């Protein structure tokens, strides 16, 4: 029965993720609203903002569920676990999907990514690295403080560490793109 629940959760996450990717890709075609003198936004920049916004919603919802149910609740209640996995998968697809699709379109010549866009895309993983490192440090400190006396960390906590870090890693991709345009 749990396999069915998991399959449904993955399918729902995929559907929601694809819808949010399509929504983010619409930002590529939006015209820049600035005047000739101010800096217009690049298509990839608009896509980064859209992907960040659509991935933050399920990520924040997942964090809220985790805080509400707690680590023990995540480990013992199937519904909590499935909901977090659903929201986590949705967040990852919403964050990384548009960028993957944009790169494939650019390779086919259907989207213009110029050398500056490529430099910014190449630099985005630096932000992801810092975010992952920060998540690992925060989780290590938290789990050490919480379970030092117990001498053991619940399996649910390890699974949460993985899911939250993967979500943060994915969200850091559009974030890195946005930072790249601000720095460049």
């Amino acid at each position: 029965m749990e396999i069915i629940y998991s399959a449904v959760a993955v399918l729902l996450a995929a559907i929601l993720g694809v819808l949010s990717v399509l929504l983010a890709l619409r930002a590529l075609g939006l015209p820049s609203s600035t005047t000739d003198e101010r800096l217009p936004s690049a298509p990839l920049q608009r896509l980064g903002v859209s992907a960040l916004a659509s991935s933050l919603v399920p990520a924040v919802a997942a964090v809220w569920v985790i805080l509400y149910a707690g680590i023990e609740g995540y480990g013992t209640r199937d519904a909590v676990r499935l909901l977090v996995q659903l929201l986590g998968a949705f967040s990852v697809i919403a964050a990384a999907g548009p960028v993957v699709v944009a790169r494939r379109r650019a390779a086919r010549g259907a989207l213009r990514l110029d050398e500056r866009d490529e430099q910014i895309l190449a630099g985005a993983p630096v932000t992801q690295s810092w975010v992952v490192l920060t998540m690992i440090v925060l989780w290590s400190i938290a789990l050490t403080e919480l379970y030092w006396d117990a001498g053991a960390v619940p399996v649910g906590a390890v699974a949460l560490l993985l899911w939250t870090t993967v979500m943060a890693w994915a969200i850091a991709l559009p974030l890195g793109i946005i930072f790249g345009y601000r720095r460049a």
Partner: protein
Amino acid sequence: MAERPALTNTIRRLRFNHGEMTQQQLADAAGCTRQTIVLLEQSRYVPSLVLAMRIAKVFGVAVESVFMLEE
């Protein structure tokens, strides 16, 4: 660390001299985004040699006529 030399350009003047070409038209012709053209005109971005040559080709002039090194 040695200070990077500044790169100036005459893109804006060349655009106006070529039928008041817009930044978007130049971007389309050179294969880059309008944002890149704006940053180039403001000397806030140093283009690659390929992009510099593409822009020079659009105007039908030598690269040295578009981009100049200020030391």
